[in-house]
């Protein structure tokens, strides 16, 4: 009777793992292509201040970045050390903000254009003067949603 339940031994063929590296390499290349290290070259300093009351910005397609800060050392010869703003890849003055907003809006889908959010990455040593100039231009350009990008303050956050 017992012999009835005994399985017949059959040699399992070894599963070939030779294709596993290929699969993983495909994954690797996917990640290398899909993620990017850095979007634009930074021409101004941007040591962000710390805060506790921020919200996550999940709607990436609505965001346009403006950087404010003193030019990096290599650009100081040309542009001086006073805080300036960087729009995309170039250094600019506040009166170029209106054109910048218009071109950013033109890149977006028409129904989203009025929901544009301007993310300001401002160096903590910059002064309020240039920031308020930028804000006046943003108001003129009718881009009224603004967010100040800050780092999380681990000491203070509860």
């Amino acid at each position, binding site marked *: 009777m017992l012999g009835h339940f005994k399985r017949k031994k059959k040699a399992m063929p070894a599963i070939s793992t030779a294709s596993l590296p290929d699969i993983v390499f495909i994954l690797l290349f996917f990640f290398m292509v899909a993620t990017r290290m850095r979007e634009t070259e930074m021409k101004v300093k941007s040591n962000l201040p710390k805060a506790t009351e921020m919200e996550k910005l999940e709607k990436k397609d609505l965001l346009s970045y403006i950087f404010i800060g003193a030019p990096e050392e290599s650009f100081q010869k040309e542009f001086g050390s006073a805080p300036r703003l960087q729009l995309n890849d170039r250094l600019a003055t506040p009166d170029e903000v209106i054109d910048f907003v218009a071109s950013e809006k033109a890149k977006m889908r028409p129904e989203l254009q009025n929901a544009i959010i301007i993310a300001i990455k401002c160096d903590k040593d910059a002064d309020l003067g240039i920031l308020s100039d930028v804000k006046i231009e*943003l108001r003129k350009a009718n881009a009224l949603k603004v967010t100040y990008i800050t780092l999380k303050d681990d000491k203070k956050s509860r």
Partner: protein
Amino acid sequence: MARTTPEINASSMADIAFLLLVFFLVTTEIDIDEGINVALPPWTDVPPPPVELNDKNTLTVLINSRNQLLVEEELDDIDNLRKRTIEFLSNNGRNPELSNSPQEAVVSFKGDVGTSYETYIQVYNELRGAYNDLRNDLTRKKTNGRISNFNDLDRTTRDSILIEEIKFELPIRLSEAEPTKLGK
């Protein structure tokens, strides 16, 4: 003499590739930025007439070009600002020198062109923090402790009524004036 070369074991290749993969996953960041949201007032060519506000319903916060803070005409420290703002907002007429109700209370805030951005953000953070703390308290009370953070209320469920209620009871009335031009 011809010898058959033994087959090279390729199973460790997968491990190497996995290591590389993990390395890339860790070093590249799909970062989600975090920021303090601000709504700017629309631009008008004519400056709006100064709103007559009952003085006790306004909390004036000034920062000068040396990053010093003046709250209701006395020098103060940033660390006290949140407590003072909460006291001012949640007064509900008890102290005759502070606000009548959160709906009437306005926090008026002004910097100087020479104020550093770091100080400005710290002050703004504290003022927003005061509003957020009060909103969180109200959320906790209204949900009987179920949810303790206003931002955790879900807009898509019936909590949306609650969101509107809290926004009505505790409107964020944070007005920011053009900076003075004394510094520099």
